[in-house]
């Protein structure tokens, strides 16, 4: 028997290390974050202010405040509502760093990118001029950007508080009780349930591929494999969808969803409803004014 050539074994050349590519890294991070965002119930199960409330009160209360933020015409009201959001977070034992990591940084980045051109293209009083390019920022443009960013940050904070402080099952039931169409609630619930199954399938596919790869793929080969994987994943999701529907049919599903609603309003829920409505009404009244100046004029301070 011929001896095994040992030139490869003795070679001083190190094989090129295969690093996880962009898609794999993104997918793995996405799965981790999605799992954390969707399934983390550590805050929902703690004993804070929002957690103790009936889900219907939370949904109505926080949605009303979100509506106030959207309609407010002065920054004072928006900042006031932002302060309310932070107070609710503190009372509900949600650390501010969690809000920053899961909502504020992302919202600031994406809204900032959208708002940035507005600073320069809105006509108005000049604020400063960018060196080299000579673009002029205007006061009106900057104010518009501040309005947009503060509105987004505040509404995202309220939404995140609702999701973090309520079990997902209760959010769905609450929506149903509030007469949100069944189809919408069911689709939302199923998406939540199966997005992770599909993400896990995608990750397994990538890992299975990785385990059979030596060295790096060329760009075109990598794209071809990625496209094929997307096709397989799509086909698997159709298959899963079909199976789930059969399982529902097997247990009597005929296109209409029925749920058990176990919510009972207690005294603190009524008190919280009153509190939410009072804050919302106050914010709506203050929010009617275009500026702090006109507001102070109305209340006779100026």
């Amino acid at each position, binding site marked *: 028997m011929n001896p095994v050539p040992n030139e490869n074994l003795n070679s001083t050349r190190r094989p090129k290390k295969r690093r996880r590519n962009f898609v794999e890294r993104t997918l793995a991070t996405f799965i981790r974050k999605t799992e954390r965002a969707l399934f983390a119930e550590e805050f929902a199960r703690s004993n804070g202010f929002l957690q103790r409330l009936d889900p219907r009160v939370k949904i109505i209360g926080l949605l009303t405040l979100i509506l106030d933020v959207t309609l407010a015409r002065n920054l004072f009201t928006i900042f006031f509502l932002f302060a309310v959001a932070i107070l609710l977070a503190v009372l509900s034992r949600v650390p501010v760093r969690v809000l920053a990591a899961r909502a504020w940084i992302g919202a600031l980045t994406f809204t900032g990118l959208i708002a940035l051109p507005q600073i320069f293209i809105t006509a108005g009083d000049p604020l400063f001029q960018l060196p080299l390019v000579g673009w002029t920022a205007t006061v009106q443009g900057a104010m518009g950007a501040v309005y947009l960013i503060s509105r987004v940050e505040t509404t995202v904070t309220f939404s995140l508080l609702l999701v973090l402080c309520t079990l997902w*099952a209760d959010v769905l039931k609450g929506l149903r009780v509030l007469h949100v169409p069944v189809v919408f609630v069911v689709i939302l*619930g199923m998406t939540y349930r199966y997005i992770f199954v599909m993400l896990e399938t995608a990750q397994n596919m990538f890992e299975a591929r990785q385990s059979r790869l030596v060295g790096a793929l060329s760009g075109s080969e990598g794209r071809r494999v990625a496209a094929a994987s997307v096709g397989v994943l799509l086909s698997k999701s159709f298959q899963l969808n079909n199976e789930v529907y059969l*399982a529902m049919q097997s*247990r009597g599903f*005929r296109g209409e969803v029925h749920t058990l609603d176990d919510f009972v309003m207690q005294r603190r829920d009524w008190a919280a409803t009153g509190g939410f409505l009072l804050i919302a009404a106050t914010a709506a009244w203050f929010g009617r004014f275009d500026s702090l100046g006109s507001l102070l004029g109305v209340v006779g301070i100026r």
Partner: protein
Amino acid sequence: MKNSAANVFELEDVTYRYEDQVALDGLSVAIKEHQRVAVLGANGSGKSTFLRLLDALYFPEKGTVTAFGDNLTEKAFEDEEFAFRFRRRVGLIFQNPDVQLFNPTVFDEIAFGPLQMRLSKDKIRKQVDETLDMMEISHLKHRPPHRLSGGEKKRVAIASVLILEPEVLLLDEPTAALDPKSRGRIIDFLADWGGKAKTVITATHDLDIVEAIADHCLVFQNGRIVGEGSPAEILADTELLEKTNLIHSHRHRHDSGEVHSHPYFHPSHDHKG
């Protein structure tokens, strides 16, 4: 098995195909009341399709399927009363529990079936609690199903069907991908459920569990029944089991130095050496 027992299901010359691929090919078989049937066959032999036809999730391209004396057709299932009556009497447990667990909590999952049947809400709450106790999963009541282990998921899937108190239970590979302890619990449950008074049809290729869960076996290959008999008869027929890819020969050496080959599955091992 009593010969006088009435037929629960009757299939007459049933053919079913997935596009070009024939899954069941001219199948004719009857399942009697209180019979505990093991449907054996390798992957792709038509076992799962057979169960889905029995559960009226699929309808045959050719031939007829009758359950409790009624013809199972798409038209018959347009009648809500007929559909609900059938769904209460026949329950199917899917191979992949993830498919069957689509509700946000275990409690909601088990309540799903009775809610569709529009039973009273107080009755449903009581039945869910009883079913959770029976399956020893009360501690999982408020947990989301996707966070459970494989064995726990399987027990929840079984509970979600048993709450309807079906007369016929169909199981597709109930022990697939389970650890030994979870597998043992499922087998114990299947062996005892309903005090052997109900009809249970289990599709499996796990020959180790057949004697515990069945008193009659059907062996499938390429969408046809190629063997039928008691578990003892079928398990002794190594030629049939080898032909249908349910066992394979394996070669090994004993301490005495004797090297020989025999089917991988065999009830006893008698060597002189």
